[in-house]
């Protein structure tokens, strides 16, 4: 099976030759992997057996020209440097860099002081926004399943609080619901436009999401999610379905068990990261495995940083045995692997997953 066939087979709930694999690493881990394998990111993906490629929506060319490329900004966060301490993204959200240089802080949110009427939304049609995504699709689509992400993965709730501020938005749900509805409608319009562009490029998977869970429970009361977020998620997925066929990936950290039936109901097909500290992957598989593909499931809070290689191997094997029947499983770390994780554990995770196929083939001989 090619990488692409393997992923498509798993997504169609048919048994692939081995479990498909995806990645998520901090830049420091990428650097160590490139050093270890003596090559670029593509070579590392090849050595680890990564079956998907992810393309990102970027800000337009005129913003990219002036962008600040250094750590900790990468991936979803493309910023301009306003001063040595202050950075701003295309949405007007401002950041400072944390004490260790590895993470950024939110500094100001544009809708803290500006009304929605006066806010300038980014232009989805601005030249260059989808150029790198298009190039990625051209480069990879024949051999790999191509997923598309970027800020669209912070679909509604997250982008809304980035724009408004976390506490302010939570208060707005109770004290200013009309504002929240209006803000989310603007976001829906923007997300639909982004998704249509991605469909036209021919991506296989569109990565949506919102961090809705804490480690133990939900951030929003479920009734608020149902009232504000769910109808827009449903409308977005319907708009995607009306335009083309891409699988719907949905990311939320934490324990979102209560919402999974409704996520499936509105059309989510791939759930990420299914954090084993918050959800039981085998229970999710048992309840929704005929409709949902689990993506992630290998713990970056326990096993990868603190486990021995043999414990990592064991987690991989048990996950495949508990959740891998009839496809429906793509193994990946549950978030970006952090700098305290040994390369040995990272490599063991991917090696163990690939060995399952060899063992299966040997048994079949």
């Amino acid at each position: 099976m090619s990488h692409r066939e393997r992923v498509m087979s798993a997504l169609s709930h048919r048994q692939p030759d081995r479990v498909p694999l995806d990645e998520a690493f901090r830049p420091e881990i990428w650097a160590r992997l490139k050093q270890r394998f003596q090559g670029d990111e593509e070579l590392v993906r090849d050595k680890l057996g990564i079956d998907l490629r992810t393309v990102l929506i970027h800000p337009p060319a005129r913003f990219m020209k002036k962008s600040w490329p250094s750590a900790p900004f990468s991936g979803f966060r493309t910023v301009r440097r306003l001063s040595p301490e202050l950075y701003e993204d295309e949405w007007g959200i401002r950041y400072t860099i944390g004490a260790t240089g590895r993470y950024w802080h939110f500094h100001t949110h544009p809708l803290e002081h500006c009304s929605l009427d006066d806010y300038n939304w980014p232009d989805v049609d601005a030249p260059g926004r989808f150029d790198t995504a298009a190039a990625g699709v051209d480069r990879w689509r024949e051999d790999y399943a191509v997923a598309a992400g970027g800020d669209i993965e912070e679909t509604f709730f997250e982008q809304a609080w980035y724009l408004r501020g976390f506490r302010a938005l939570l208060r707005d749900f109770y004290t200013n619901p009309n504002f929240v509805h209006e803000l989310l409608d603007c976001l829906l319009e923007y997300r639909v436009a982004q998704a249509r562009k991605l469909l036209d490029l021919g991506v296989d998977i569109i990565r949506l999401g919102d961090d809705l869970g804490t480690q133990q429970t939900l951030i929003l009361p479920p009734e608020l999610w149902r009232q504000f977020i769910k109808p827009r998620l449903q409308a977005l997925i319907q708009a995607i379905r009306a335009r083309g066929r891409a699988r719907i990936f949905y990311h939320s950290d934490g324990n979102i068990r209560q919402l999974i039936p409704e996520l499936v109901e509105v059309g989510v097909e791939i759930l990420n990261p299914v954090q084993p500290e918050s959800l039981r992957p085998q229970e999710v598989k048992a309840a929704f495995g005929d409709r949902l593909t689990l993506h992630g499931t290998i713990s970056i809070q326990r096993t990868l940083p603190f486990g021995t290689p043999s414990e990592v191997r064991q987690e991989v094997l048990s996950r495949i045995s508990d959740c891998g029947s009839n496809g429906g499983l793509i193994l990946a770390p549950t978030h970006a692997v952090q700098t305290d994780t040994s390369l040995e554990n990272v490599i063991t995770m991917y090696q163990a997953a690939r060995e399952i196929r060899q063992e299966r083939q040997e048994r079949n001989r």
Partner: protein
Amino acid sequence: MKAGASAEKLEEELTSSLLSMDIEAVKRTVRDNLERGGDAQQLLSILMNGMRMVGRKFEDQEFFLADLIMAGEIMKQATAIIKPHLSASGTESTGTVVLGTIMGDLHDIGKDIVKSMLLSEGFEVHDLGTDVAPAVFVQKAREVGAEVVGVSALLTTTIPRVKEVIDELETAGIRPEVKVIIGGAAVRQRDVALYGVDAAVNDAVGGVRIIKSWARGTGAKQ
């Protein structure tokens, strides 16, 4: 009898408005009552009881983070109205806690849950925010005479930095007076011995329980 009935009605009205997150109703009731010569201490007690109910509902997963934050906001605004009417002796706190997310880490949901729940239990809480240097925890603890320092760390890479807080407390000579708790999803029990903290917890509710037990004098360090 009449006064008792009206006190009961006030409690019922305020608590119900708080639990349904109706900030305007809470503020209106508080203002009306104070204008009619009501007892500021009584209003505060009713709201504190209400906040404890909010905390319990959060523990039981009947309420969620958004409820906790909104209830905290209601409490803050209502207290601002009540405070000028309080006598100085009426505001004794359960204990003083310094909280913050350790340097290198920007996650604050867990810390904010702990803060809201401690406030609802009558603690004085000094929140240092996120990405806080170890020395800053100690400076603040000394400045406010804190009995507890709560260090939050979600990232596995930042948990070990709690040892620097312990070292700084020792250098400052106040380690015996201050209990230190570390909280975060990836925190393990072995971190107690590893870093010399007094408690290590995975969840905010468990952390609050431990801090409350210390305040009641039933903690491990007694």
